[in-house]
């Protein structure tokens, strides 16, 4: 079994040939697929893709998806100057600059010109007397007739300040005009000189909206859109140095993420590759191992990418970032093979491979279990990373097993570096009473942790997001300036008919009006603002008719006129369907989600919720209302993160038990010697992170899962080839490159990946240092 015993190896049989050829066919197929893949660019840059789906409320998940889908291609630009005339002229320069080059992919939506007021008035005209704002409804219901008459007379004799949308006779209280004013008050922007204008922060802003055209992003690493916007701004600034630009939009975030990811993939991927190849060169002093290890990594990554693409349809950017760290893990198998070759130059490559296989398969198995455990979480991103990693490792391993013995012809040169690394194992101390000692250390660590006050659990979803900060700040600023509702929290209203949905929205809005009065929010937006339920249209119509009659009577008495309400029957109610067909509905149309499985759904969104403390009251407003669900996206995801942190911790413990059981099957009573280094290292990592006040989150737990998968390998190799300096050489080189990969992953700007990287960067060297301590204390070799 060990490399020290000379063995007469049998020549490679047909199985070896078949395996090598079969694997060649697979690799060729993958090569073809890769060529197609990069030609069609199946990279997914959707920033939401990493976020988990809400498996508990599929209707909420669907609603969120629809909402996100509607705005995934829109970009809003606010261009500001201290004078409106400057802003107006600047907009023309900005447009002109943007119309050329990369900016041409941004097609402007002519929002300021699109809505025809006359058409809108014409559409609503029949229901003129059946539409009221909440304030009007309260006023009409609570004001005595005499006061209504008084107000009408007062308005008549004051100078004409308010424009009217109709003759006095058809609307003596000016209700129709106010209703439209309330519709307009849902946003701060107003048309002015053919543009949208808003004044804020002492600036006059022009609002421009664009839709991104064409396919999703190519992974070029260049901020094309941002570049185009900045160039346009620079041209504006050449003329108006004080001009300002604020931007918002999913495409900008996606692009920033793509640029960031591109940089990270290159740094981690190429950095690791260079490190691995350098280590291989130092250890083996021959180009052949360097080239072959390179081949195994290339095949591993290509197969992983192809299988992931076939499995998921698209490959997410962050999968590639994480996948780049695979280079540092997948090299283990090739390195291990060459290290053994160096130790047993007399053996035939196939014979050596046969001897190495048990350890290699066991190492691959434990790593695969650990990576697959990542995929148990309902995070689509993590699932992809798990599949990518397991497939990549397996492919690299198969390349080593099937091809290396055939391609590795000739002898291994002697390397002084390799020898000196291998010799360190001899000098490494052994822990005489390792079992009681390590158990005591474990207990002490646990106690210390308890004394430190336990882990600082942190499940805030913001840990997950890596939107670059200036972009997020700008996004918020745009929302504030325009007074737009936030998509983070909303109500989902459902019913079995549009009328029922509208009625339920209205019940909810009645409750929200009370919260608006308490200044917990500024306002809300819903379809029922535009299309009240038939029930409400009827009751409002009655209120208006009664008030008008009273006003006519009073004015007739005071001024000797003879006004009377025309006796026309009420029109059929305005319907959502009719409204949806009108251009006026464009703005609120996204709120109507339509029918799904016999259920009609709409969203009610909130404006001006600035204080997180108002969220419980808002959540409470939905309570007891049938068909109304409060959706707090960040809270929901944070709760999910917490749930997974807890269940993943349980799974981690179970994983340790399973790995120990697997080791038991192979090593019997010595199994703990391969297992304990990883346990100790994990505990130290937890202790160190806690001591430094780092937050403890799901991703740390997942990283410990990986530490189990990767760290156990070192124990296995050392147990399998105890006191073999060449096994030790393989472990050291493997650990070095793995450490480099995850260390580079620790540079990632994505907090989740950073947590992975840091945890492993800390844990891996610990396992490496500890593993030789746990070799059997006897000098006699046990088999």
């Amino acid at each position, binding site marked *: 079994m060990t490399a020290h015993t000379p063995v007469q190896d049998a020549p490679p049989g047909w199985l070896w040939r078949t395996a090598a050829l079969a694997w060649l066919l697979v690799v060729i197929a993958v090569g073809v697929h890769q060529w197609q893949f990069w030609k069609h660019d199946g990279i997914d840059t959707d920033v939401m893709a990493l976020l988990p789906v809400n498996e508990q409320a599929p209707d909420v998940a669907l609603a969120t998806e629809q909402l996100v889908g509607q705005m995934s291609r829109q970009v809003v630009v606010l261009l500001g100057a201290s004078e409106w005339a400057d802003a107006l002229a600047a907009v023309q320069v900005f447009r002109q600059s943007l119309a050329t080059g990369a900016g041409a992919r941004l097609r402007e939506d002519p929002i300021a010109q699109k809505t025809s*007021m006359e058409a809108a008035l014409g559409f609503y005209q029949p229901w003129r007397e059946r539409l009221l704002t909440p304030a009007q409804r309260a006023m009409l219901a609570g004001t005595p007739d005499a006061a209504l008459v008084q107000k009408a007379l007062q308005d008549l004799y004051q100078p004409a300040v308010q424009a009217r949308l109709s003759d006095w006779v058809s609307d003596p209280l000016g209700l129709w005009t106010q209703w439209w004013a309330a519709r307009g008050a849902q946003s701060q922007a107003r048309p002015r*000189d053919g543009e949208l204008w808003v004044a804020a922060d002492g600036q006059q802003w022009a609002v421009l909206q664009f839709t991104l055209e064409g396919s999703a992003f190519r992974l070029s690493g260049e901020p094309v859109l941002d570049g185009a916007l900045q160039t346009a701004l620079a041209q504006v600034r050449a003329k108006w140095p004080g001009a300002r630009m604020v931007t918002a939009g999913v495409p900008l975030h996606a692009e920033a993420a793509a640029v960031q990811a591109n940089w990270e993939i290159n740094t981690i991927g190429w950095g690791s590759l260079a490190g691995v190849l350098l280590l291989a060169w130092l250890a083996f002093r021959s180009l052949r191992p360097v080239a072959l290890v390179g081949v195994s990594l290339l095949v591993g990554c290509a197969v992983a990418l192809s299988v992931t693409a076939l499995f998921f349809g698209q490959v997410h950017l962050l999968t590639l970032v994480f996948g780049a760290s695979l280079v540092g893990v997948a090299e283990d198998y090739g390195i291990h093979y060459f290290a053994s070759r160096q130790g047993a130059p007399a053996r035939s490559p196939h014979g050596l491979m046969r001897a190495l296989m048990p350890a290699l398969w066991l190492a691959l198995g434990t790593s695969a279990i650990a990576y697959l455990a990542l995929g148990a979480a309902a995070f689509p991103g993590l699932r992809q990373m798990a599949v990518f990693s397991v497939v990549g490792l397996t492919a690299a391993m198969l390349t080593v097993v099937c091809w290396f013995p055939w391609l590795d012809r000739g002898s291994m040169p002697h390397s002084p570096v390799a020898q000196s690394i291998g010799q360190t194992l001899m000098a490494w101390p052994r822990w005489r009473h390792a079992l009681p000692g390590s158990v005591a250390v474990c207990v002490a660590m646990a106690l210390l942790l308890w004394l430190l006050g336990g882990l600082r659990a942190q499940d805030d979803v913001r840990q997950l997001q890596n939107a670059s900060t200036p972009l997020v700040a700008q996004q918020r600023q745009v929302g504030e300036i325009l007074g737009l509702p936030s998509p983070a929290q909303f109500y989902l209203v459902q019913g079995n008919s549009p009328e029922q949905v509208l009625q339920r929205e209205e019940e909810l809005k009645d409750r929200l009006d009370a919260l608006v009065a308490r200044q917990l929010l500024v306002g809300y937006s819903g379809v029922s603002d535009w299309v009240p339920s038939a029930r409400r249209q009827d009751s409002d119509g009655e209120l208006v008719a009664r008030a008008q009659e009273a006003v006519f009577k009073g004015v007739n008495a005071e001024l000797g006129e003879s006004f009377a309400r025309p006796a026309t029957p009420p029109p059929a109610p305005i319907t959502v369907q009719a409204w949806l067909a009108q251009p006026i509905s464009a703005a609120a149309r996204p709120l109507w989600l339509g029918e799904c499985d016999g259920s009609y759904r709409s969203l009610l969104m909130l404006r001006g919720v600035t204080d997180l403390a108002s969220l419980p009251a808002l959540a409470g407003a939905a309570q007891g209302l049938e068909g109304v669900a409060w959706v707090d996206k960040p809270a929901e995801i944070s709760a999910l993160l917490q749930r997974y942190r807890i269940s993943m911790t349980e799974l981690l413990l179970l994983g340790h038990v399973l790995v120990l059981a697997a080791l038991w099957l192979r090593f019997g009573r010595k199994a703990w010697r391969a297992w304990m280094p990883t346990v100790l290292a994990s505990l130290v990592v937890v202790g160190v992170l806690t001591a430094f006040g780092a937050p403890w989150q799901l991703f740390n737990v997942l990283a410990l899962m990986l530490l189990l998968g990767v760290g156990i390998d070192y124990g296995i190799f050392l147990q399998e080839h105890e006191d073999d300096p060449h096994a030790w050489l393989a472990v050291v080189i493997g650990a070095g490159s793995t450490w480099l990969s995850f260390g580079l992953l620790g540079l990632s700007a994505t907090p989740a990946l950073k947590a992975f990287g840091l945890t492993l960067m800390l844990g891996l060297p610990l396992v490496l240092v500890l593993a030789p301590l746990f070799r059997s204390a006897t000098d006699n070799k046990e088999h």
Partner: protein
Amino acid sequence: MSAIAWTKRTALGAALCALALSATAQTAPPATPAAQDLLAQVRQRVHDAPVVRGGFEQLKTVKGFKQPLRSSGDFVVARGKGIVWHVLKPFESTLVVRPDSLQSRGSDGKLTTQMRAQDEPVLRTVNAMLFAVMSANLTELAQHFEVTGQVAAKGWSLHLVPRDPTLAQWLAAVELQGNQFVQEVKLQEARGDSSLIRILTPVAENALRPQDAAQFE
């Protein structure tokens, strides 16, 4: 990534509100030399005082009414502060226009209408325009209107036509007459209603009287 979809609503709201409040601002294109000359001449005549006060008579013709509506009262225009329009006959009411708000009170002092610029951004423009009309602030007026007119020995008269089509949907024209002060304002609405306001015994003062100052609080 929020709110982008909602900008469309913005546009819409915008269109609506502009119409509802009749307020839009138009950037002045460079005035013709003739118009500039006219404005310069009128500016020379107008008494630019911090406070102008006086009485008024208003004759309003509203479609559907057999009789024109007559009212009278007094007013104060204070530079930088706003306008108080106090109707005394036939029903008492007070309209206070400040740069960032508009309030109307009944004879009992109870608030009947209130608009704030923080809710309705266009209000600022409307109020600036009203102020410009009442104080014959020609620079401001020329921003919103196409100005023609003449200057004679006994006074000047200006004919103002809104530049912005949205404003024009409501307001057809404004006629201003005056000498040292504005003497007559005629608002011609696009729907056919019209108001004729005559300013009586205007006087210029250097500061607000205490009781007036309270109105602007």
